[in-house]
């Protein structure tokens, strides 16, 4: 009996020393379905590639749910090592001093080189601070693009529009053939945030929130008002089919060929390939020649990986090793191919090119090409506290504009009022 106890203690000892040697870290993410499977594959490959570290991916629901889970875990002192935070929520984390530990710092402290120039220009500073340090590692980066049904456009004898001015003529011709021109899946992202990036227009004071806490929201500007007025006019003319604020409800009509064009994410590419049986093409987001004839790059959407503060040195070493693996050209290329999200490093982009991926799939390159367009003063990104709530106000007000319950002017006023209230409340929480 005694012997047996000794043996089991010895066994336990062995077991725990083996466990000690491997540092285990948790990665909370919001990638469901196919994306989640790809995430698991990447984690498995990392775990199999070495024996010192082990990363455990845990699915936490939608982006919002993942962030909320992270917030409550952090408050309880049990934050995960790595958490995926979405674009609109990033400011909430990045402004909280001492909640996240900078990716750049972690990489350098653990002896991995870090050069921000390795990253694709459009992706580089979006999750960075005002000094250009990277805080969160862009992970699933996408950008809004235009998808078009080649057959339907050919029927009306038109090409996809480069500018919104061109669009009006094209939509008229499509309408004459009984075809509605477009639907779109994300009003705040595509027609508010990226409208400002594409045309290089200021979004908030304090350098779009990069140099400090912004107080003024610039959404009530004449260009956006003009664009939204046009959108409403297009809806009334039957050019633009509005199916509410749900992403899928607006994508399905494109798949069912009820509309000729659809504005979605470059990350939608993989899914669209599977769900459609017609030939479609991809092109840049149109711009207004009258607003900025040298329209440039757009913002990235999607999310970044942040490392939460308060963990041990050994654990950050594991985080660094994992981030190093995640930014390898091969890993990035795999992720890009599987999902349609853009490769975040130039090396990964080069690898995809060398492999002939874009020769076979020219549409898969549109997102990254658009992100590589020239940028301006206001195209680095934006940082607004409590911004997810402001996005809700945008959805709400646009619903009302489209159903004639309010005017564009009043909608923009209401959005700015809510948005600025959110900004000022948030600014007071930052110490």
């Amino acid at each position, binding site marked *: 009996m005694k012997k047996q106890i000794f043996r089991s203690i010895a066994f336990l000892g062995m077991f725990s020393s083996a466990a000690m040697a491997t540092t285990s870290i948790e990665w909370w993410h919001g990638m469901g379905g196919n994306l989640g499977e790809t995430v698991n594959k990447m984690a498995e490959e990392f775990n199999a590639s070495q024996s010192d570290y082990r990363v455990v991916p845990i699915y936490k629901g939608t982006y*919002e*749910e993942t*962030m*909320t889970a992270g*917030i409550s875990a*952090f*408050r309880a002192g049990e934050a995960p090592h790595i958490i995926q935070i979405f674009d609109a*929520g990033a400011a*909430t*984390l990045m402004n*909280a*001093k*001492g*909640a996240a530990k900078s990716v750049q710092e972690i990489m350098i402290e653990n002896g991995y080189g870090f050069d921000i120039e390795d990253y694709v220009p459009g992706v580089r500073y979006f999750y960075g601070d005002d000094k250009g340090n990277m805080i969160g590692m862009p992970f699933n980066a996408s950008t809004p693009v235009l998808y078009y049904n080649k057959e339907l456009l050919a029927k009306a004898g038109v090409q996809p529009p480069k500018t919104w001015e061109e669009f009006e003529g094209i939509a008229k011709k499509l309408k004459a053939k009984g075809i509605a021109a477009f639907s779109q899946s994300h009003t705040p992202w595509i027609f508010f945030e990226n409208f400002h990036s594409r045309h290089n227009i200021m979004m908030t004071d304090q350098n779009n929130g990069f140099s400090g806490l912004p107080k003024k929201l610039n959404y009530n500007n004449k260009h956006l008002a003009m664009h939204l007025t046009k959108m409403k006019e297009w809806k009334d003319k039957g050019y633009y089919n*509005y*199916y*509410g*604020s*749900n992403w899928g*409800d607006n994508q*399905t*009509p494109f798949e*069912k060929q009820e509309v000729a064009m659809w504005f979605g994410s470059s990350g939608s590419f993989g899914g669209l390939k599977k769900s459609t049986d017609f030939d479609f093409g991809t092109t840049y987001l149109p711009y207004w020649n009258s607003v900025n004839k040298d329209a440039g790059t757009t913002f990235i959407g999607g999310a970044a990986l942040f490392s939460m503060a308060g963990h041990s040195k050994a654990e950050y070493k594991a985080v660094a090793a994992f981030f190093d693996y995640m930014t390898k050209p091969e890993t990035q290329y795999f992720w890009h191919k599987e999902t349609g999200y853009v490769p975040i490093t130039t090396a990964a982009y080069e690898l995809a090119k060398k492999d002939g991926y874009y020769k076979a799939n020219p549409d898969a390159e549109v997102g990254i090409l658009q992100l590589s367009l020239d940028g301006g003063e206001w195209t680095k990104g934006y940082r607004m506290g*409590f911004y*997810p*709530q402001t996005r*809700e106000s945008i*959805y*709400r*007000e646009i*619903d*009302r504009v*489209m*159903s004639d*319950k309010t005017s564009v002017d009043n909608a923009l006023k209401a959005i700015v009022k809510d948005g600025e*209230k*959110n900004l000022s*409340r948030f600014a*007071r*929480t*930052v*110490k």
Partner: protein
Amino acid sequence: MATKRVQFSHSPIPYLFIVPQLAIIAVFFFWPALQALYLSFMLEDPWGLSSQFVGFENYVELFSSSEYLSTFAFTLLYSSIVTVFSLGVALVLAVKANAILRGQSTYQLLLTWVYAIAPAAAGIMAYFIFNRNIGVVPEFLNSFGWDFRPDTNSFDATAMVILVSVWKQVPVNFVFFLAGLNSISKSVREAAQMDCESDSRRFWTITFPLLAPTAFFLLVINITYAFFETFGLIDTLTQGRPGGSTTTLVYKVYQDGFIGADLGLSSAQSVVLMLLVLLLTFVQFKFIERKVHY
């Protein structure tokens, strides 16, 4: 029954038996309620790194916001409609099912089993049924010339949410009404039948008063349901859209607290809800229960 008050020497054991229950109530009800009350007077950074006392600012913010007030109005309207319809429909069904002689249990089963569906699952099912791209209902209504668009039309969306909420709640009420009907003694019913010929008159003078305790209990349950449990349904069906027109108070707590991470504002809303429920319960027991004869 005469009340006798006899004091025996107490053993502590009964108290030990209720300790687990009290502990559960304390941990899961009182403690979060107190936390919400505390947070509602604070302005806090989402991560809990900084926090400051702001007095009634969060409440002032709420009641000066026209969105919140319209959510408030919507919740009251929605709850009353859902309560009235789910009670009314269930009562009619229970009375009718109770009067059937053959195949009664089949009717009862068919009218009850929706009860087993969770609100979120009901919401997802309804989403598929009412979705304009894949659902059958829009197609059906369109054929009558009603351009049914719950994704963009607030009237259609509200009608849809009410319909699904009522459908989900009718079985619960049905079961209780049926049990209530069965507990009315046969002799009373037979005596009534001899004295009064009219079905409806018998119902309103004999059956309904005898059902009143059940109906009162269900009224409380249904208002609570419409206020709180419809959250899963709204979240899967409309997310409070379009234009915020199907946002209930509970859904707004979730939006501001979970999507917006503004804990102070969200907690203040929770406290308002708590007060509202306290008030409703008070009114119900004070004024309505008096009219109920057990």
